[in-house]
């Protein structure tokens, strides 16, 4: 048990310190790297409580895909310069900090409600009729619940994500004129008589192409 608690404290320390560093560090790219470190240590904590499926999914989805997109955005859009402006006094009309504070307060109260519920109403947990056993791997038990009792909610959340994705594509897509697209069918079905044109060239005059 000693080793277990030592590892727990190491991972939670890394998680908390890197979460603070996300907001504190000056360079935005460093912020994203700290965010990745945070995700990784959180997934280590998940694995430590025996939720290895959640831990791995956390790594695959958040670290492997979401954080890569974060990095892309941060590297491409040069957010680093803006971040300096948000906190400097020169920049007027700064509405970011109050909004951020409001959001974090709301999340804080939500956490209090959830954790307080666990603490003072323990029968709430029992009302969820999930029998947890060590015999079944947690991948299987999650699947058993997700695809039977909560199948509708699961499908609806998937649909919402799909709609959001398609919506984002539709919003950002614009047809540009004059873009040359490759068509394999066209390329392959090209014959000699439409590709090659034999022309009688007159002396000292040449031939005009694309006239």
């Amino acid at each position, binding site marked *: 048990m000693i*080793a277990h608690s030592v590892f727990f404290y190491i991972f939670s320390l890394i998680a908390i310190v890197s979460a603070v560093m996300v907001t504190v560090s000056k360079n935005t790219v460093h912020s994203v790297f700290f965010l990745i470190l945070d995700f990784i240590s959180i997934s280590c904590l998940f694995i430590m409580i025996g939720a290895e499926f959640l831990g791995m999914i956390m790594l695959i989805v958040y670290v492997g895909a979401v954080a890569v997109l974060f990095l892309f955005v941060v*590297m491409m859009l040069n957010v680093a310069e803006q971040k300096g402006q948000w906190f400097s006094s020169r920049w007027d009309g700064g509405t970011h900090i109050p909004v951020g504070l409001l959001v974090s307060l709301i999340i804080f109260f939500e956490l209090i409600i959830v954790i307080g519920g666990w603490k003072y109403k323990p029968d709430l947990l029992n009302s969820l009729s999930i029998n947890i056993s060590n015999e079944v791997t947690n991948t299987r038990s999650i699947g058993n619940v997700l695809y039977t009792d909560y199948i509708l909610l699961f499908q609806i959340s998937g649909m919402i994500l799909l709609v959001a994705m398609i919506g984002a594509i539709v919003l950002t897509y614009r047809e540009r004129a004059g873009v040359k697209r490759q068509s394999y069918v066209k390329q392959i079905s090209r014959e000699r008589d439409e590709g090659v044109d034999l022309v009688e060239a007159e002396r000292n005059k040449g031939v005009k192409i694309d006239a």
Partner: protein
Amino acid sequence: MDSYFSILFTEVYKILFLLVPVLVSVAMIVWLDRRVWAFVQKRRGPNVVGPFGLFQSLADALKYIFKEIIIPASSNKLVFVLAPVVTMTLALVSWAVIPFGEDFVLADINVGILYLFAVSSLGVYGIIMGGWASNSKYPFLGAIRSAAQMVSYEVSIGVIIINVLLCVGSLNLSDIVMAQQNLWFVIPLFPMFVIFFISALAETNRPPFDLPEAEAELVAGYQTEYSGMMYAMFWLGEYANILLMCAMGSVLFLGGWLSPIDVFPFNAIPGPFWLIFKILFLFILFALVKATVPRYRYDQLMKLGWKIFLPFSLFYVVLTSSFLLYFDLLPGK
């Protein structure tokens, strides 16, 4: 306290027993790669250092060790140094779950295949960090290309893994191998094996998908600013990843440590040798592809990943699951 130390020592011993062969075989595999490449092009390849040039990679490694490590003045130094370390570490940690035989695996975890997938999806960070920290145009472009490429092909690899998992009913790699005792998955899932092979080429930035280091456009991609041992670490990590992809392919489709037919001269050979044979077979295929196929264009690469592989492997998931459901073959009931 004593028990902790004994656990620690046995684990360290086991890890070394796994890692040293992996590192040596990475060095040897580079030689094999160059020899196969040369064989296809009717050249001799490395044949000077040692018998058949076997020690060429060791000589190269020695050269890299003694070369100066140059850190560009305008680079982000910490990230610049961390990038090759991340690449190398991630390439090596994934070997922990590869089963070399029955009960012959370092960590027999429940979600082995997810672990492999997660670690290989982390591999992109070594490259992005290297490209960004170099603070120079070519490495950055190479890193962006590589990241987009790896993320896209990971999606199709994930869907292919789902195909295999439907037939197995477990995420454990040893279970995946044991499920292939009667029939290797390469036979019922052959199209998936082909797509897995091509996606593995793209995932490890091998030719014909080596756009991140396309020398005609991007010098050496994300490795441009690296020199000496740091370059060698990128290079070792890359080849360790290639070997890992070959191991993953043999575990998922070619029956891992199982012998092809369960008859005397074949099943007398111990399991690890079969796995090594299969890894070598896949690697030689990798090397042959490198020697024969011209490089893809970037938009073709993306089109192949998103518009052909992803829909096709999704369709195959539906096909596999409906087949299993119809013939009542679904495992784990």
